[in-house]
């Protein structure tokens, strides 16, 4: 395979690192959640793209359809997306509570308050 052959993996890796970096480097709790989402999405892209069969269509049982993409990863990712949505919702809910309790959503400021306590 030539250069663009595995470009989907490169996209996955780039997205993953971007997400991971945001989670680690940013102090803003919302941005961390955003980073986490990007990180998760990179894995979803990874799953979906690996299921693609060259020249294949959607897996529909019909006459004339011989090659089709592997449907299983798609289904798995539907589940994973649900999980990711739940995680995001919970994280955001926690951020709201943290904001109420601390008056800020900046990690360093929260830590400052915790050290004082």
């Amino acid at each position, binding site marked *: 395979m030539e250069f663009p052959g595995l470009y989907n993996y490169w996209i996955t890796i780039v997205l993953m690192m971007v997400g*991971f970096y945001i*989670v680690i480097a940013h102090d803003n*709790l919302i941005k*961390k959640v955003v980073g*986490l989402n990007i*990180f*998760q999405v990179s*894995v979803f892209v*990874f*799953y979906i793209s*690996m299921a693609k069969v060259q020249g294949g269509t959607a897996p529909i049982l019909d006459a004339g359809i011989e090659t089709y993409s592997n449907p*299983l*990863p798609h289904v*798995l990712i539907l*589940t*994973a997306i649900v*999980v990711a949505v*739940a*995680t995001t919702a*919970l*994280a955001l809910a*926690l*951020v709201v*509570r*943290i904001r109420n*309790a*601390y008056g800020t959503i900046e990690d360093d400021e*929260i830590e400052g308050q*915790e050290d004082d*306590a």
Partner: protein
Amino acid sequence: MIAAHLPALQVVVPLMAAPLCVLLRRPALAWALTLAVSWVVLAIAVLLLLQVLETGPVTYPLGNWAAPWGIEYRVDMVGAFVLVIVAAIGAVVTPFARRSVEHEIPRDRIYLFYAMYLLCLTGLLGIAITGDAFNLFVFLEISSLSSYVLIGLGKERRALTAAYRYLIMGTLGATFYLIGVAMMYMMTGTLNMADLATLMPAVADTRTILVALAFLTVGISLKLALFPLHLWLPNAYTYAPSVVTAFLAATGTKVAVYVLIRIFFTIFGGVEVFRINLIGDVLMGLAILAMVSGSAVAIYQNNVKRMLAYSSVAQIGYMVLGVSFATVTGLTGGIVHLFNHALIKCALFMALGCVFLRIGSVNIGDMAGLGRRMPVTMASFVVSGLSLIGVPLTVGFVSKWYLIQAALEKGWWPIAVLVLFSSLLAVIYIWRVVEVAYFRPAPEGGPAPAEAPLSMLVPMWLLTGASVYFGIDATRTLEVAGGAAAFLLKGTP
């Protein structure tokens, strides 16, 4: 008829009960339902264990879709053992929970607490029962999401940040696991663990599989708080409600260790994963670091809950150490320590729950004189503490015996020395509490705290008694753990 569906019921019963709790609303009703469900779950788990002991692994195709296409539930010796641990802890914690939860959680949220508790139980049981790598991820997330909520229910505001940090770390770990599963699927085209195990040897030497193994290991290590990925654990355990800490400390990390065992010895069982690369050495090194550093840091904690949390980090080190030996003795030690440590830590955190109920604090300075004021609670703390140290006639001794024996069998005596050294550190931190509780006079003035209510003392002593009983007669637990270890090391699922 029902017996054939036990594997499904194991998970479905608590899963269905959770929304029922939300519908019931009344705290007393929600608690009663949880109690009933947790005991039913325990009964199912015990029946499954007996069945496995009698006839070997039990499989159950979910929705009658045959493996490897459908999701298969598969209960073997290890799985059944972990199921019993989780279910038993759940069944004992629930009666304990009523008074403690009333005290620590606002009344209008109690029903939510029980719903989350049941979901967490579902997730943990599901992890232990499923034979499908992706299904495991789903259960992992069910248990994790509900435990984030449970931790966030803690009284102090720091519970929120602890839950948030755990959420970030936990999600990263779970996603790492997902990547590992994806790579395995790419190479083998299956998600069924038994199927994976048979297909793995053919592709084991590819770089993809090695990377998959790395992702799986790191992801699960995050979940089980293996040093140095343990940073979420101390805060989460410290600020969670007492019941949650008792439950999670005894089950959450144990199930993660189980997943680790599953990956290494079932999925990668055919390729003897520890012999083809450095992974065993790395795990062993980290386990030893966890043992020593966890115990050492625990000595300096003034919050007793945090102290025990660091002690958990050390104890996880023991379990992973047992796993990393990859010998029957070592693995037996690791698996039996799952059970033993669950008993010990649950009882210890329950004792702290009782203390918190009566004096509203778990700081070591506030525990002065408790030896006289809450004698039953503190006696349980001392016995469980001795078990943690590994004094003979307690379960802690049994685990330690096996780990040391495993180290000596391989001729690695420095590791045996470190295991013993770490238990001596445990003497120091446990005895700090004992000295304060028994030798420092209680502060003058103010009402003297009474003993904790019976509904909390009985579950606590049940576990304490079990940790002495299984220390004196360890043959039964060792039979199961040893059987499981031998089964796993055969290399076939």
